[in-house]
């Protein structure tokens, strides 16, 4: 176990980006409707599927900003 005390690490504000997909998919009021539809798929479905890409991007940005470089 390392013994030296390290300075308290400040949270990188980029981390807040993770809140975005949470709010976007956990509040059905935002997306519970049929139109506009894409290719016959109601808004309710393609909006939530699109946020799969959204969460991947947000998580990737946060990962790059906070990963250990060593």
């Amino acid at each position, binding site marked *: 176990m390392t013994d030296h005390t390290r300075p308290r690490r400040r949270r990188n504000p980029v981390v807040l980006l993770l809140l975005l997909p*949470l709010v976007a998919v956990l509040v059905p009021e935002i997306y519970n409707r049929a139109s506009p539809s894409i290719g016959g798929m109601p808004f309710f*479905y393609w909006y939530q599927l699109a946020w799969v890409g959204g969460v*991947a991007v947000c998580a990737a940005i946060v990962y790059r900003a906070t990963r250990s470089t060593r």
Partner: protein
Amino acid sequence: MTPPFSALEFGIVVAMFAVVTVLGFMATRWNRAASLASVEEWGLGGRRFGTWVTWFLLGGDLYTAYTFVAVPALLFGTGATGFFAVPYTIAVFPLVMFAAARMWSVCHEHGYATAADFVRGRHGSALLSLLVAITGIVATIPYIALQLTGIKAIVEVMGIGGDWPLWIAFIALAAYTWTSGLRAPALIAFVKDILIYLVVLIAIIYVPYKLGGYDVIFHRADTALTAKKLSTLLSGPQYLGYSTLALGSALALFLYPHAVTGVLATKNRNVVKKNMSLLPAYSLMLGFIALLGYMALAAHVKPVGGTAKAPDTNTIVPLLFNSEFPHWFAAIAFGAIAIGALVPAAIMGISAANTFARDIYRPYFRPGASDREEGLVSQIVSVILKLGAVAVIVGLKLSFAIEFQLIGGVIVIEILPPVVLGLYTRWYHRWALVAGWVVGMGLSIYMLWVTPSKTAAHFGSASFAFSTWGFHTKMTIWTGIVGVLANLIVATALTPLLARLPRGRDETSPADYEEAEAQPMPLGPGQARGSV
């Protein structure tokens, strides 16, 4: 009507199964260690898995065969509510990204192999650790049994009567898991996921093409659901139930022993965090698989199996494949789903067995047990769990297992305060956390008890109707959220009151949770090569 037996389909599925079995036994040579006889090596693959192996392992672990058959069945049976699986598997990654990384660091530093190990070290409480261990095992057992539903649905649709295929599948699984440990499902996950991705990609293009496009599918599905007073959109009172089910399931997912095992088997903290941005690829696949439920409605698929009154809706996806695809391709899809059941079943068996060996057998039965003995106990328990799961499915009703799995998330979320809050703070008193667990678990089980379903008086659903308590509303809430809130309130309120009682000894230090110095695990001779 059950489809007729097809020798071609059967032959392809058996061949795929044979290949996977050989792979399972070969996995023992992969990334070879001096000896597999310990929880570290057998149960955690030596903690050496890199980004891609972890992606396949966790993907195969969390997105189970049950998910592939049950989620479409849910949309088929209940409409829009079933789509909760998508926000659930989106919300999980932002929620657990940092907690999982902290968990990895502290467990790596102290050699913890399970959540209960961590809780004992952090809170200095044997009782709390035991509660966490038991909670995890109880929540996992029905989950293992449920993996068989995937195989059972396939067997039914292939026109085979009897339970012998389930026994053969799980005996083979138990055999190669015994020899190879976590390396077996990690290797098989590659084959399984490549097959599943291939099948899904083709299905979501070919089936809509045959049925006339997504607009026809949604239109017909909506017509079929409206006849049952359901819809492809949520109704107002369903909002709270939908979002709490998604949020709660997301919070619960990484508390399951098999998810913890997947995280701890990685070689470093970056692998864990990186995977939180790579794993959503599975959620996209899951979303499209979910829509297969509407495609089945649009294709007028009639579920088979089960009872005449309540046929087994889990059969709709295999039936859809059978009716829309040529036999040889349907067979590949069946094989993929069946293999998809083996990967999570193996990991769940291993992780629950690790928890038993580490946190129940060693502290309570054999305090002086060697690593070798502990590993052996874990191997034996893992076999018992798998064969027990088949016995449960064959001997009891399938719906029994489904009801239990439903409450699995409600049960497992009760260990969130000692585990997840424990990763961030030492403020909570160990006895307050015990009291919180007792109250939260009691309340949850009571709420599940008073919730009827169409066929049962108790444990009917994990969605609690407020009308049970006399509120004039159709609103429901996911039971686990209420239970864990009660748990948190009790733990928080009692902590200051219990200040006079001795606190547990914390063997961890704040630095253990942060990024460690670049200090790889010491590798023995011959271990350095071949790390992926």
